[in-house]
């Protein structure tokens, strides 16, 4: 089967950038009746490629729900999400699973590395899911780990690595299959400031490209300056969006 492609519907934005993610009117409610909680109340937000978009806000404001919908692991009740022009909200669950395997990279707060696998094997998992033979996948993962400064720790298991090293393995795992969208959930929360900055710089360095969107959910305001677009969320909707220097910008990107 041919890998899914979205390049035919890509939208150029000028200045070499493209519209990567378009989130339109997303609503999501958990529970029913009096117990119902409206987690997302019609969120609209655009993310461009070649940028690091940050999603910030208090606990329970709907950040996690939003990135879960954007990453295709949670179905929205209403609204659409398209990534490089391809709508994922209209996909079946099976198609979403395949889409995630090919196009989505994840960096988790708790790393979620498989403890029984080595660093290289962990980083190779997305390739294995795609069908790359194990030896080739692990070789490719080892090379990427080398770029992340873990060339000598490829055979180490997660419990033999520091938090920063584990997060770097997680970054390698998130990027090994060249995803169209990288979703990072509190990537620096479990790390000290210095290590957190190193990790964020690595994400900027390695993840940002003209055919990828990077969305970082974070509480850590010390890393805000590393974002090109920072969306403040509260009570299920985006309150404001600023650029890296704190200047307000619109939620949607105007298509020329």
């Amino acid at each position: 089967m041919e890998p899914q492609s979205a390049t035919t519907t890509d939208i150029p934005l000028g200045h070499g950038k493209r519209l990567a993610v378009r989130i339109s009117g997303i609503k999501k409610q958990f529970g029913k009746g009096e117990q119902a909680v409206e987690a997302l109340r019609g969120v609209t937000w655009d993310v461009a490629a070649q940028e690091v978009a940050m999603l910030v806000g208090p606990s329970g404001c709907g950040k996690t729900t939003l990135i879960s919908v954007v990453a295709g692991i949670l179905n929205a009740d209403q609204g659409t999400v398209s990534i490089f022009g391809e709508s994922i909200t209209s996909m079946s669950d099976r198609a979403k699973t395949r889409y995630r395997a090919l196009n989505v990279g994840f960096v988790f707060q708790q790393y979620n590395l498989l403890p029984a696998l080595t660093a290289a094997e962990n980083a190779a998992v997305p390739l294995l899911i795609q069908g790359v033979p194990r030896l080739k996948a692990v070789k490719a993962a080892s090379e990427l780990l080398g770029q992340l400064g873990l060339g000598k720790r490829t055979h180490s298991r997660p419990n033999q690595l520091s938090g920063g090293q584990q997060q770097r393995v997680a970054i390698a795992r998130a990027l090994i299959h060249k995803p169209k969208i990288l979703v990072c959930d509190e990537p620096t929360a479990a790390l000290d400031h210095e290590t957190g900055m190193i990790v964020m710089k690595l994400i900027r360095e390695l993840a940002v490209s003209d055919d990828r969107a990077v969305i970082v959910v974070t509480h850590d305001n010390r890393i805000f300056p590393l974002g090109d677009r920072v969306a403040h969320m509260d009570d299920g909707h985006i309150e404001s969006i600023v650029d890296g220097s704190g200047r307000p910008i619109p939620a949607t990107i105007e298509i020329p």
Partner: protein
Amino acid sequence: MLPAKPELFSNFGEIVGWIAIKMLTGDRAKFIGIVFGLAFASALIMQQGSIFWGLMLRTCAQIYDLRGADLWVMDPSVQFIDDVKPMLEKQLGLVRGVDGIKWAVPLYKGIARAKLSFIDKSTGKRVDVTEQVILIGLDDNSLVGEPASMFTGDIEDLHRPNSIIVDRVGLRKLFPRQGLNLIDSPGQFKSTLAALTRRKQASPMSEPNSDKDLEPIGLGTASQNSPVLFEMEMNEHRAEVVGVCDASRTFQSNAVIYTTFSRAKEFVPRERKLLSYVLVKVMPGQNPLDVARRIREQSGLSALTTDQFVEKTINYYLRYTGIPINFMTTVILGFIVGTAIAGQMFYSFTLENIRQFGALKAMGVGNLRIVGMVLLQAALVGFLGYGLGVGGATLFGMANRGQNSELAFYTHRYLLLLDAGATIIICTLASLLSVLKVILLEPAIVFRG
């Protein structure tokens, strides 16, 4: 850096097999715990099943031991081998008159009392001990049904007056303290027995604290050239043991004594009916089942092939004794305990890895694959547990096997299948909760801190 994209999701085995096994074996303690839980259940099922099977075989051991005949003819009300309903000897003639029979010979099978003499080492007094024995009376001329193998002596010596042959395991009942049954060499056996039975008076040796330390004495004087090993008394008739044979252990574990049919009748109290069974050989080309039918029609007796008689005997024990229920209780207990241990540990293993499963789901591993991973893990621990359990039970059986073993242990191939089936069910039940857990698992769990 990255190889060209291969056919998508082509290596199902890579992700399901390799990662699943790595995850499973990564937590050694839990892995070993699950395997041992299953091994325990499997071993218990196999061990109890083998003992049950062994006991069942003992119930019909003498049917197999009394070889050479195609059919067993008996009173129609006989339900199992030891349920002897004696017939009149004239019925032997009736059977012999049926078409298709090559020969038909009488067989006596019953319980007799053997009296043996000992010296009490502590008091020096002679003590007579009476033991119940299983008496087999073979056809005087042909000795059909003779023991399969002789440990010492010659079966033909049964033609001598007063002669009997005792089975080796039975010696343990007759001489409980002398360990004669444990001697493997016939020469050593004979010399040990001779030394034991030579004394005709009290031994000066006395063992302290021995309540009843009895030493056998011979009742007669065996000459150097005589085949007589020792003597005993049955129904006030002298019986000379001229050989020791190897016979299968019986359910009652009494000593088995072989003699001729006519002599057997002397060793038991006189009765009008003393014909226990008629052993029949059918003519070449005759179907034993057809001959059996003719015997039933013409004599009114029951005629069964060896296999039919074995089946009838086992069925009796299955139906009318509590043996199956007692064993089944243990087997069910093993099954429940195994399921509980393996299920609890397996589920806890899944719960501990739930974030990893969630991460894999988020990264694009579908439910089918995730369930496949869990089932593969369950299959692996099941396979190992089954192997270890069966191996352990077999070692137990091998360590306790032999003629002298009290343990009835026989592992039938059906037991292996039954145990495998039980292990599969245990693994299925154990993994069921885990499978449900991973199916219902929301991959969004990975975003929770």
